[in-house]
């Protein structure tokens, strides 16, 4: 009788432990699935886009975007929803560690970082002969194209 009770207790404790372990590991997985990191380094220039694959929310909610690092040339952060410019913020030159709250109507968002000046007439532009393409010309980069070194953290 005693041994039956003992076995039952062991099974119950084991079951509880398994339940706690499963819930903890699920929580960890959910948390990591909701946070995305993007890195850029000083050579990244002119304009960049980051987006979270399959970033679809079922209902309108707030997306938290943190940008941390150094902006070399004054730039701009632009959030796009499909083809629509949803939200924009200026990124001043210098160190930055700011979190933005962006309302997300429930569609995939893309995050753009672009310099203030597009420098279309940059000196050094030359036609890339090996591309043999119509209407496309290679443009040499300039120091004013550099965006900065930063990381973007997106939490939903």
């Amino acid at each position, binding site marked *: 009788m005693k041994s039956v009770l003992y076995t039952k207790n062991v099974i119950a404790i084991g079951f509880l432990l398994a339940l706690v372990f499963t819930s903890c590991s699920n929580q960890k997985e959910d948390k990591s699935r909701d946070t995305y990191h*993007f*890195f*850029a*380094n000083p*050579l*990244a*220039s*002119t*304009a*960049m*886009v*980051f*987006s979270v*694959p399959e970033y679809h929310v079922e209902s309108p909610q707030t997306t938290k975007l943190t940008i941390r690092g150094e902006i070399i040339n004054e730039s701009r952060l*632009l959030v*796009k929803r499909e*083809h*629509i*410019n949803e939200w924009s913020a200026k990124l001043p030159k210098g160190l930055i560690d700011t979190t933005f709250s962006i309302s997300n109507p429930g569609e995939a968002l*893309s995050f*753009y970082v*672009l310099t203030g000046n*597009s420098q*279309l007439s940059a000196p050094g*532009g030359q036609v*890339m002969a090996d*591309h043999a*393409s*119509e*209407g*496309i*010309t*290679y*443009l*040499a*980069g300039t120091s004013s*194209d550099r965006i900065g*070194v930063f990381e973007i953290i997106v939490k939903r």
Partner: protein
Amino acid sequence: MKRINKFLLLFIKLIGVIVLILLTGITAAAIFFAGRFALDNAQNTYSFRLSEQDRLVQGIYIPSKQRKSTDKIRISIEGETHQDCQFILTTLNPGHTDKEQYAFTRKFLLPKGTVSARNISYDSYNDENVSIVIRAAENEQNPMGNLKVTVKYGASLFDLLFL
């Protein structure tokens, strides 16, 4: 004589069977590899469109994890721009330390008008994230144009067969 003929007939039959087996094998292998190549090609193709609604910028981000294989990135741009634009391709290593990190940006001018740029190709590695952006030169009040950008990874069938 009869015995030799019998052996010859058997030998010819054997050769015929071997040839049949070989032909069947080669055909099966060809079908398998063609199917696999088509599947790989479809899985490694990405595209985005620039529509009349787009202002200032539009692009696509392709994280390294999404790609099946890479050794080359091939880009085609077809359509029309309503103003001068820039095409900006950045390949980034997502390293977590400064030493690991690198980024390469290639920038092209897409002048106002028809654009038909095919097979712009660069080497790219499996662990690189890729950012492709088309940016307007003017302000964001004016539409950028109508363009389709297609990005393909991996070698083409021509490359595989002849290079």
